[in-house]
């Protein structure tokens, strides 16, 4: 007859403290279920709250500024080269570039076709951050014509608010290209007149954009300012709702357009809640395993005389350890397996009941949840065996 637990079972007091044993099983099951559910929810949150705005390039472009507070008002709140480098080096930011602004006074007038004059601002940015760049968006020193790209929001504001209030003609997108405005640029070196021509509209950059070399030339030759720092920086990221990105902004007192990152803030809170649950679940698992280890110690203490006699009769301590430890493997498999199955059921019903129609969330639990379940099972079995072996070798 092959040696098995069945032969030595009558000699072990395994029935001791059945109540505490069952409570430890329940605790372990609840802890594992909570941990795996929290993990799956964490993953679900990441998927559901990923930015969904249609982007042709697959990136989000967001402008950030330094928060103006009572403490820093009046100080230099521009971004230094080191701060921009720091942004560029972050793993969740693909690129960062400063938005250079005019350092001289600019006024624009529409001429006979558009009889109004207004002070405006000009900014320049690296061209690969601009969504629409026509071939005409270039400038050479000496060129009187300055190509301009404006935000499409500005055209809409002009047509819907500004023009009607001043009895000015509305302008279509097609007609914009024909419009030539006069740009009067005044600085320490006097005034220079340019002609501005709107060559494109941007859905991405919320500004009046001119070629970078023009603005650098004008800042130097009209305002006598070179290499000035920018007060706005545009960053390029694949996920505007990245929680690490939001945390970085908060830590450095940077601010962004809140609307762009609203999902990120919601995600931040939800993930914090879920992380708290994970911590609680780990605690529950640890307590359950501690309770079970007390049960094992009690069982071995109560069976001590019989176990010592078995060892005296020639039973191998290694065999006894493995055989006694193996007895609980089916229970661990049942507990962890049931938890994984329940998480899968929860995932399925969560999608069916609360996310009807959405196909971006998989009805299957994530592979990392399965691996965590398997790791927990291995950990339970390993700790169990280690403890039994230690107790038996002490006899």
């Amino acid at each position, binding site marked *: 007859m092959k040696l098995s637990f069945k032969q030595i079972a009558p*000699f072990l007091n395994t029935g001791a403290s059945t109540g505490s044993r069952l409570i430890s099983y329940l605790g372990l099951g609840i802890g594992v279920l909570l941990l795996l559910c929290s993990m799956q929810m964490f993953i679900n949150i990441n998927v559901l709250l990923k930015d969904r705005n249609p982007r042709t390039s697959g990136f989000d472009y967001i402008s950030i500024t330094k928060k103006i507070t009572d403490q820093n008002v009046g100080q230099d709140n521009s971004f230094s080269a080191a701060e921009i480098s720091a942004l560029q080096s972050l793993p969740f930011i693909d690129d960062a570039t400063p938005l250079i602004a005019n350092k001289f006074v600019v006024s624009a007038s529409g001429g006979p076709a558009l009889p109004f004059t207004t002070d405006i601002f000009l900014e320049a940015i690296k061209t690969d951050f601009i969504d629409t760049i026509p071939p005409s968006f270039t400038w050479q020193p000496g060129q009187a014509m300055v190509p301009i790209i404006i935000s499409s929001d500005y055209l809409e504001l002009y047509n819907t608010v500004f023009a009607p209030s001043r009895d000015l003609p509305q302008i279509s997108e097609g007609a914009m290209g024909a419009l030539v405005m006069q740009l009067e640029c005044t600085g320490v070196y006097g005034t220079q007149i340019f002609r501005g021509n709107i060559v494109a509209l941007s859905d991405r950059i919320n500004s009046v954009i001119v070629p970078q070399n023009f603005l650098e030339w004008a800042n130097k030759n009209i305002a006598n300012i070179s290499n000035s720092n920018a007060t706005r920086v545009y960053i390029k990221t694949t996920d505007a709702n990245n929680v690490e990105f939001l945390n970085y902004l908060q830590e450095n007192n940077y601010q962004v357009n809140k609307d762009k990152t609203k999902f990120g803030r919601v995600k931040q809170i939800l993930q914090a809640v879920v992380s708290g649950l994970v911590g609680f679940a780990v605690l529950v698992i640890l307590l359950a395993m501690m309770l079970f280890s007390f049960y094992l110690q009690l069982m071995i203490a109560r069976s001590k005389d019989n176990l010592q*006699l078995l*060892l*005296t*009769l*020639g*039973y*191998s*301590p*290694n065999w006894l350890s493995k055989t006694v430890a193996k007895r609980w493997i089916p229970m661990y498999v049942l507990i962890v397996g049931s938890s994984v199955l329940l998480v899968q059921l929860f995932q399925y019903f969560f999608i069916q009941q609360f996310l009807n129609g959405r196909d971006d969330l998989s009805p299957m639990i994530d592979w990392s949840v399965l691996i965590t379940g398997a790791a927990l099972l291995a950990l339970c079995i390993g700790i169990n065996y280690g403890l039994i072996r230690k107790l038996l070798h002490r006899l």
Partner: protein
Amino acid sequence: MQIQLQKIAPQYLEIEKTQHSDVWNKEVVFKKGERIQIVAPSGSGKSSLIHFLYLLRNEYTGQILFDGKNIATFSPEDKAKYRQQQVSIVFQDLRLFSQHSAAANIEIKKTLVPFSAAASLEEMAAQLGITKKMQQNAGICSYGEQQRIAIIRSLQQPFDFIVLDEPFSHLDENNSIKAMHLITTEAAKRNAGIILADLHKVPFFESDSTLFL
């Protein structure tokens, strides 16, 4: 295969008590197949010797070699194998599972490493007259019945030596002779050595040599 005692002596035993001993502080060899009787009055360390041979205690000076290997260096797994297959024992205090039946006490040993040529359990029980006691809890059997259970248990495994510590102390002469006969028959099947330690010389044990402790 042999057991060598190389000048062993219990650490607690006064040196004077070892001077006239045939075993303590002497070079002694037990060969496989030999029958050795050890006569040991109370307090001479008889049970200590048995426990040293069975690796239950190690508070002795000198060395005990089994087949050339010092048994004090055995790992827990080596000890287990030694007890499973090389040395069997009948303890003076028997060491049965009192809450379990005679049959269960014997079976738990038999299952470990059975010796196929051994007489069956039923035959042994019949020889020693405890057939009717086999399903009774060992704890409620008489001491003599328990001794016979312990003897049968010791004969369930393969062994090169069987070590017996006052195995017939609670048996009458008739049952003692029957038990001795069973032991010598089973030892012969294994060509094993018998080391029997008792307070007095056991007349019905035909030993090859007698040592005084």
